[in-house]
């Protein structure tokens, strides 16, 4: 049995490498031949154009009826009309996204706060391919009077189908953390995430490797990463850098021509340096998303996520356990209008009473896509018995209820990027 296994492995290795090597060689030769042929074509057309243009045109015109349009060589047509757009011209694509969010928050402990459409956030997003193998994306965010480089990472295509992203990035934990806030349909950050990571996005400096696998009708992606983070809610409360690793799997299946279902799981682990010990923080969770989008832009989605954090408070100390989750349903009412409803649920384990502190919130809102580059979102959120992080974010006392009304106006200038799925 062991011998057979060895034989099989050897055969597979040999064949695999032979295939790869031979494939590589043939690929190389193909590319070279194509380049040579292209050169020859160019020289031919150049020569033809210089010497034969009037006679050729006349000869061809005589043979066929005068209405037939000749296909004009690509160079002649596109030279005069081709406008270099966006990132294919050698310049990065630069877009600026302005997010104006006004809010009105009332807590049942009497606190109130409101803001009326300040420029809460401006994102300057630069992106371009560096060369055929890598690409750079940078996001500079200006908010509350400060400017910070929130994202700056290089995407490189490594061999064996692996993609590498190195630099500073919003970490792909769950479904929401990785996205830019203006791209979300709702105007706030889900309470579950605020309780897990705080009001700021969970950012890491490091390396992420991911590989998509195309298995039948599905796309499976496996991600692994190692990064340092200064998150003071999930890791070190003093805000010192801590190192952590993560692993993630997502799978996307086609249910039909118009519907897909995605499932995923994440795991993050790292030291949190609490009480200057080797205490660990672990985060684990799963998410799902059902999406239906038919030919006329009728669209429904249902998505949800659950994350749990175990944060050791020093070696031999207790472990703080926190849960954060949400369930979101969206429906397109129209080409430009969408309705959404979200339910947030968070819990915190209280070792003193051996019970859980629970917080829930329900939001409902309307999103109006005025055009491809402008949108308004109106959202109402009612939070019950806010936990510490959410209470701090809303400006109310811990354990109180809060009603919040958000109005967000997003405008974008710059090249028209592709729509996300």
């Amino acid at each position, binding site marked *: 049995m062991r*011998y*057979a296994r060895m*034989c*099989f492995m*050897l*055969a597979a290795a040999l*064949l695999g490498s*032979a295939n790869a090597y*031979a*494939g590589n060689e*043939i690929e190389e030769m193909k590319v070279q*031949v*194509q380049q040579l*042929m*292209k050169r020859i*074509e160019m020289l031919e057309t150049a020569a033809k154009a210089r010497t034969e243009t009037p006679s050729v045109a006349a000869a061809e015109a005589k043979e*066929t*009826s005068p*209405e*037939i*349009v*000749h*296909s*004009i060589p*690509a160079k002649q*047509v*596109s030279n005069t*009309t*081709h*406008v270099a*757009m966006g990132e*294919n011209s050698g310049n990065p694509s630069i877009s600026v996204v302005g997010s104006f969010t006004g809010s009105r928050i009332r807590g049942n402990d009497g606190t109130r706060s409101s803001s009326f459409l300040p420029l809460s956030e401006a994102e300057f997003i630069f992106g371009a391919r560096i060369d*055929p193998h890598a690409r750079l994306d940078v996001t500079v965010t200006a908010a509350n009077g400060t400017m910070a480089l929130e994202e700056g990472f290089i995407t490189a*295509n490594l061999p064996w*189908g692996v*993609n590498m992203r190195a630099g500073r990035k919003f970490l792909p934990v769950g479904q929401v953390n990785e996205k830019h806030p203006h791209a979300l349909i709702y105007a706030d950050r889900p309470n579950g995430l605020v309780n897990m990571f705080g009001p700021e996005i969970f950012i890491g400096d490091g390396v992420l490797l991911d590989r*998509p696998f*195309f298995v039948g*009708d*599905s*796309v499976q992606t496996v991600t692994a990463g190692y990064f340092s983070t200064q998150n003071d809610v999930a890791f070190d409360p003093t805000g010192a850098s801590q190192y952590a690793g993560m692993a993630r799997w997502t799978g*996307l*299946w*086609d249910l039909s*021509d118009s519907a*897909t279902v995605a499932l995923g799981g994440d795991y993050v682990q790292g030291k949190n340096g609490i009480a200057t010990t080797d205490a660990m923080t672990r985060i684990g969770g799963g998410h799902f998303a059902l999406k239906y*989008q038919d*030919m*006329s*832009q009728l669209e429904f989605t249902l998505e949800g996520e659950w994350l749990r954090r175990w944060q050791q408070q020093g070696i031999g100390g207790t472990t703080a356990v926190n849960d954060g989750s949400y369930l979101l349903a969206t429906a397109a009412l129209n*080409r*430009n209008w969408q309705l959404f409803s979200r339910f947030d649920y968070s819990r915190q384990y209280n070792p003193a009473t051996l019970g859980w502190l629970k917080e829930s919130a329900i939001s409902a809102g309307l999103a109006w896509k005025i*055009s*491809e*580059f402008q949108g308004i979102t109106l959202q109402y959120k009612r939070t019950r018995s806010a936990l510490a992080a959410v209470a701090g974010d809303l400006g109310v006392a811990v354990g109180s209820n809060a009603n919040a009304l958000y109005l967000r106006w997003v405008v974008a200038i710059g090249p*028209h990027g*592709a*729509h*996300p*799925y």
Partner: protein
Amino acid sequence: MRQLKHLIPTLLLLGLMPAVAHAQLHIVATLPALGQIAAAVAGEDGEVRVLARVGQDPHFVPPKPTLARHLADADLLVTAGLGLEAGWLPPLIELSRNSRIREGQPGYFAGADAVEILGIMEKVDRSMGDVHPEGNPHWWMDPLRGAAAALALARRLAALDPAHAQLYHQRAEAFSRRLQALVVQWKPRLEAVSPVVSYHDSYRYFSERFAIKVVGFIEPKPGVEPSTRHLDRLITLIGDQRVSQLWVEPYHLGRVVKRVATLSGALLVTMPDAVEGEGAEGYLAMIERLLESAAGRQ
């Protein structure tokens, strides 16, 4: 003896493993009509897959990541060009990690580079709505531009697969001849056709080829719902110019178009930008369907 018993399955496995090179070219087309043109030229020497479905708005195909699996092993990507697919194709190409089919590479073919383009705007900015600044991308509705694209596609396929170059050129020539015959046959029949109004500016090339005037659009700025004043004016225009037909793409059929048709008395005609069918037969079926509808036979 025992070792032999283990050796034989290994050898068998070795023998069953597939050979190195694939026989057929893998061609992926973004839109069904383009896939039919590609299949007409590639014939048995190419396997064609299409990303969008018949009846789907080509500007807004949902970029499901599962579509990227077709792109992963594609040798040639056939697109319409001029930014028609810019709203959904780039992330799929990125996900597929296939560097051969990126724009500018030999595995990327945009039909718009091979045909004469109409509707190029001198000065364009966002205040005009979401328009195509580089030109109208719906070129495949004109049979002769389809033929020109087929000939250019044959040249590209010959470059990628020189062994079958003759066959590609032959098929493209045959395809082109059939389309030219169709145009010659139908042009005189459509001479006296009255002007039409269409929903979106998808029929520019078709109407220019067959000299049919398009005098107005239901949706003046693509992607923006019309106003009551615009529709009332359009209904008056339909009466004044004796417009007989309203041309609508299948994905724009809805209450507004039906209402305009009822109030104006014009005939509502569905003019698809692709029909089900294989290769040359499919593309020709679409052109014939358009011609028969324009002539009022359907």
